[in-house]
C-alpha cells in the first residue's frame, strides 16, 4: 500500500505521487526522496526480547540477577559459593557467558546447580536472545533464582538489557579503586556493587572509602556490600540482599485465575 495516501491496497494499481520528496518540488521522473520519521531505539529489538524474558520471569516468580565485572574479579568463585549455599534454600540456576570454553559452567555444575554455558564467539556481551535460548535449555523452576554471569567486560554489557531484575557489579580490591569513574556506564546501570576479595585488604593499598565515594558519584542510589568469596566474610549480607529481592519477585507473581484465597 502507498505510504503517502493509502492508495493501492487490495492489489489495486498504485497512483503515482510526485512532488512529495524532501524538497516537495521534484520533477516527474527524478528522484523521489522523502523523509520518514522513525524515532526508534537502536536497541529496540534487544529490548523487546528482554521484555519477553522479563514477562516470563515475572510469571514464574523467578529473580534474575545479571552479574557483571572485569575479568578476574572473582565472579565465578563468588557465584560457585553462592549457588552451593543458596540451593539449600530454593532452586538456583546459572547462565555462564564467556567468549569461549565451558570451564565456568563446569565449575558451577560441580556444585550440583544446573548451568548452561553461552559462548559468545567474537561477541563481547550477552544479549536478550541468548538468555531466552539459555533459559529454554535450563527449564526454570518456579520461584527460583537465576544468576547470569555476563562476559567479563565493564563496557559493553552495560547497554544490553537481558530481562534481569538487577545488574550486580563486582569490583575486587586487587583492581583500581577508581574503576567506577573509568567505567561509569556500568556502575550507573548496576543496583548493587559488591567489593570482593576483602580478605586481601591488609596486603594492598586499596582505599575502600574512596571506591565507595566514586561509585556513589556515578550512582548515588547504588547498594554496597563488602565480601570475600574465599573466606565467606560478608556473604550473609549478599544472601540477605538476594532474599529480599526474591521475596519481592515472588510476592508480585501473578496468581493463576481461581487460585485466590488459597
Amino acid at each position, binding site marked *: 500500500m502507498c505510504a503517502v495516501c493509502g492508495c493501492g491496497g487490495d492489489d489495486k494499481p498504485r497512483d503515482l505521487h510526485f512532488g512529495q*520528496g524532501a524538497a516537495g518540488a521534484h520533477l516527474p521522473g527524478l528522484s523521489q526522496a522523502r*523523509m*520518514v520519521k*522513525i524515532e526508534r531505539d537502536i536497541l*529496540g529489538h534487544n529490548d523487546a526480547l528482554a521484555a519477553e524474558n522479563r514477562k516470563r520471569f515475572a510469571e514464574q516468580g523467578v529473580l534474575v540477577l545479571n552479574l557483571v565485572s572485569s575479568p578476574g574479579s572473582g565472579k565465578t568463585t563468588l557465584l560457585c559459593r553462592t549457588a552451593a549455599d543458596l540451593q539449600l534454600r530454593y532452586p538456583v540456576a546459572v547462565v555462564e557467558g564467556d567468549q569461549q570454553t565451558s570451564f565456568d559452567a563446569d565449575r558451577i555444575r560441580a556444585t550440583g546447580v544446573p548451568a548452561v554455558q553461552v559462548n559468545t564467539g567474537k561477541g563481547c556481551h550477552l544479549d536478550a536472545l541468548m538468555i531466552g535460548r539459555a533459559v529454554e535449555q535450563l527449564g526454570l523452576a518456579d520461584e527460583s533464582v537465576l544468576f547470569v554471569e555476563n562476559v567479563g567486560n565493564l*563496557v559493553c554489557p552495560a*547497554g544490553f538489557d537481558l530481562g534481569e531484575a538487577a545488574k550486580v557489579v563486582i569490583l575486587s580490591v586487587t583492581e583500581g579503586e577508581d574503576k*567506577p569513574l573509568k567505567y561509569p*556506564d556500568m556502575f550507573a546501570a548496576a543496583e548493587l556493587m559488591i567489593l570482593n576479595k576483602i580478605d586481601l585488604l591488609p596486603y594492598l593499598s586499596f582505599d575502600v572509602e574512596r571506591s565507595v565515594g566514586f561509585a556513589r558519584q556515578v550512582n*548515588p542510589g547504588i547498594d554496597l556490600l563488602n565480601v570475600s568469596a574465599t573466606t565467606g566474610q560478608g556473604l550473609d549480607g549478599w544472601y540477605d540482599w538476594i532474599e529480599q529481592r526474591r521475596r519481592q519477585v515472588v510476592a508480585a507473581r501473578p496468581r493463576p485465575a481461581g487460585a485466590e484465597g488459597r
Partner: protein
Amino acid sequence: MHEMSLAEGVLRLLDEQAAAQRFERVLTIWLEIGELSTVDPESLRFCLEAIKKDTLAAGAKLEIIRTPGQAFCMDCGKPVRVAQRYDSCPECGGGSLQVTGGEEMRVKELEVE
C-alpha cells in the same frame, strides 16, 4: 565491539521500516546519540560503513546528532547540564546527580526513496 551489534540493529530497523513504509533505498540516516549513551559515535559510524554494503543503505549518508547530557541535582534540586556521568553539579558542586537525558541511541529520521 558492541558498536557492531548496534550497527546491525540500525540495519534491522531500516529493513523493517522499508517493508512498512514502502521504500527501497535509504539516502540519509539521522541518528540521535546522547553524550551519556554507551556508544562511541565514530566507532558506530565505522561499523555501519563496514556492514551497509549490499544493503538498502549501501549509499546512505550518516548524520549523527549529539544530544546533551542532562541531570537533576539531588543536592540543590536544579536540572543541570553534564558532560560525563561523574561530573559534579555545576551549580552547587554537589556529587549526587541523577541522569535525566542524553542516554538515547535512536534512529531519528530517514531520507528514503
